[in-house]
């Protein structure tokens, strides 16, 4: 196995930044009080939670009381969608989402279908974009919720969230966005963008795992998801994950403060990778929009090979990448996102997602460019179809 390890899977998860860890550490040991307690130890942790809430609110352009901490981005998605659907059932039972959502949204919507809700899954164009017009056309009098992801976790496509928000606000329909991949990568202002609910997860922007948050605009009716104590102003029972919440607060503050410099650096790595790979390797396709994509996201399909073998061989060379969503790699099926943008089954199988992050350098790109063409070439040597193409017996 390889000595060198190059981590190129930041969309799966990121490490915790040292500054973030440093702020978290006291809350594991000396500052351990339960924030619901009245004595000073409890008041101390309560204060920490509220400061973190202020930081999240500031990062999103929201008010602090509109931020609720959760155990994960998935929990935030589940809460937002089920909560809004059930709370507004008297108005109607129609939900609009897209075909390329993360499973945390898709499977939640499928569950609601089994509960009698009707869900419209908007198709996307070949780059993975939904148009605001599609959303406008799909809204009906009984539509209670529109849930559209801010940026796609596999192909990085960034949706026209502000335009969609304008429409949903005009039509009086609740608008939720899964911004798990977007926070720290895209400028977000929930007020200007007319977002009613937004999910985020700390471990995607150099915070800890096991903590997320849901922004719920003041006045939006959402039923509770976890019942119990009066934490989070009675909206989400559970003793607070203080260290996690503190880490999330610090991480989101750092991520939004550095966003422009961070983006610039990632875009340089991304664009060079795209340009060079497309130049050096034939029969490759870039999935997702060339420009309206997350700064660190690259997603290729290599014809005639399986993504699975490619990932294994990259792993043997110390390169950590993925074929799509980390959460679905257990299922080994071609990605629903790639199928939704119109890729045939066999090409959807040969995909590679590279997501750059803070610690990556141009040397990492050099290494990838050194290793990747050989691996793709080697795998293609084994493909009878590629042989035919090379001999000119088959057109692509």
């Amino acid at each position, binding site marked *: *196995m390889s000595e060198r390890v190059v981590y190129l899977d930041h969309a799966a998860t990121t490490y915790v930044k040292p500054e973030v860890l440093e702020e978290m550490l006291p809350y594991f040991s000396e500052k351990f009080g339960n924030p619901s307690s009245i004595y000073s130890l409890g008041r101390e942790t309560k204060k920490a939670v509220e400061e973190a809430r202020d930081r999240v609110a500031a990062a999103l352009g929201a008010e602090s009381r509109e931020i609720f901490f959760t155990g994960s981005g998935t929990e935030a998605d589940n809460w937002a969608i089920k909560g809004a659907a059930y709370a507004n059932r008297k108005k109607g039972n129609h939900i609009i989402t897209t075909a390329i959502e993360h499973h945390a949204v898709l499977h939640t919507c499928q569950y609601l279908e089994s509960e009698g809700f009707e869900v419209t899954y908007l198709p996307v164009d070949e780059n993975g974009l939904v148009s605001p017009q599609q959303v406008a056309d799909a809204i009906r009098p009984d539509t209670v919720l529109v849930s559209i992801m801010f940026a796609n976790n596999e192909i990085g496509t960034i949706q026209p969230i502000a335009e969609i928000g304008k429409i949903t606000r005009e039509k009086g329909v609740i608008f939720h966005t899964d911004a798990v991949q977007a926070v720290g990568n895209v400028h977000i202002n929930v007020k200007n963008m007319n977002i009613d609910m937004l999910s985020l997860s700390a471990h995607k922007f150099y915070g800890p795992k096991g903590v997320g948050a849901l922004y719920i605009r003041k006045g939006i009716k959402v039923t509770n998801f976890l019942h119990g104590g009066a934490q989070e102003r009675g909206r989400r029972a559970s003793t607070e994950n203080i260290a996690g919440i503190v880490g999330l607060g610090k991480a989101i503050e750092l991520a939004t403060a550095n966003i422009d410099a961070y983006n610039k650096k990632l875009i340089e790595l991304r664009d060079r990778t795209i340009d060079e790979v497309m130049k050096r390797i034939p029969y490759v396709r870039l999935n997702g929009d060339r420009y309206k994509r997350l700064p660190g996201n690259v997603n290729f399909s290599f014809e005639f090979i*399986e993504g*699975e*073998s490619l990932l*294994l*061989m990259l*792993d*043997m060379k110390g390169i950590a990448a993925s074929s799509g969503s980390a959460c679905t790699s*257990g*299922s*080994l*099926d071609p990605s629903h996102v790639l199928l939704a943008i119109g890729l045939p089954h066999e090409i959807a199988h040969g995909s590679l997602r590279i997501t750059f992050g803070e610690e990556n350098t141009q040397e990492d790109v050099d290494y990838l460019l050194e290793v990747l063409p050989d691996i793709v070439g*080697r*795998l293609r*040597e*084994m493909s009878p179809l590629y042989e035919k193409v090379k001999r000119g017996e088959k057109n692509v």
Partner: protein
Amino acid sequence: MARKKVMVGMSGGVDSSVAAALLLEQGYDVIGVTMQIWPDMSEEERRNEGGCCSLSAVDDARRVANKLGIPYYVLNFKDVFQKTVIDYFTREYLKGRTPNPCIACNRHVKFGAMLDKAASMGIDYIATGHYARIEYNPDLGRYMLRKSVTERKDQTYALYNLTQAQLARTLMPIGHYTKERVREIAKELGLPVASKPDSQEICFVEDNDYGRFITENADREILPGDFVDTEGNVLGRHKGIVHYTIGQRKGLGIALGKPMFVIDIDVEKNRVILGDETEVYDDALIADDLNFISIETLEKPIRVKAKIRYSSKEADATVFPETDGRARVVFDVPQRAITPGQSVVFYDDDIVVGGGVIQQSLKSGKALRKE
């Protein structure tokens, strides 16, 4: 010199776990993989699942790999398994034959797709936890497949299809050890699977009700039909030919006053032919889809010990070459329930000579031989 790389197919069971451990000990660069081969399951099925390549097998195999400190991957072979094993299994039953899916899986999935995958990744060998031995015979210039040290556990019957090219790149380390010794090694290594029971039966048919499985997976309706005797007299109604195999006595659902056995299946007329015990015995068969290991081709009649199903005893027989790549196998004494679709495998002592798929049984091979 760089260490040779080997990809070990791991099921989470004792045998493949020990195989991985032994190869590591022998100095190979070992990569563990589990082939995910089952079709997508419902949540209900997920809860009940078991068997050699199931999700719990993945958990077990991963635990073993972690214990051994080797890289471990789950590889997707669902499509190839569906096409070459499950579809084949269904198709054969619909033709009134009784297939052996393990042989198909070895041929097309383990020593087909998995071997190709390993090769494409620059891995020198694949290895499995089969009870069999692969040895190179320099005098013959051929790789030989030999029975495992413990004959009781021997699995060569299901491996007769291996070609020289496949054998050259396959390792079966545990064939050299007894099952007891393998379990001991597992214990010594502290492998967490040391007391797991052996896996059995057809892995993708959970309840072992093949008739039900075929009925659900067939592209056409399975129709009931008549049980008849050899004269064509109707004896009763059957549930559909896919529910029966040659030699079957139980589960016929009719009472005829004497023990009756399935002796033939007539697909065209959708009939199941019953007869008495003597009629279940034949003394010859025609096999095709032949593969030979210890010899290049069958040029002249050879004397062998032949085995007509996984669980049957070997019997003395002569194999005659026929036209169109077929062979005729004539047994010294009649054999019970020679079943089309099953494989006949030829042995010379503990060496696998080769084998083929049974096309039909013959009533009087000796008469035919005189032709």
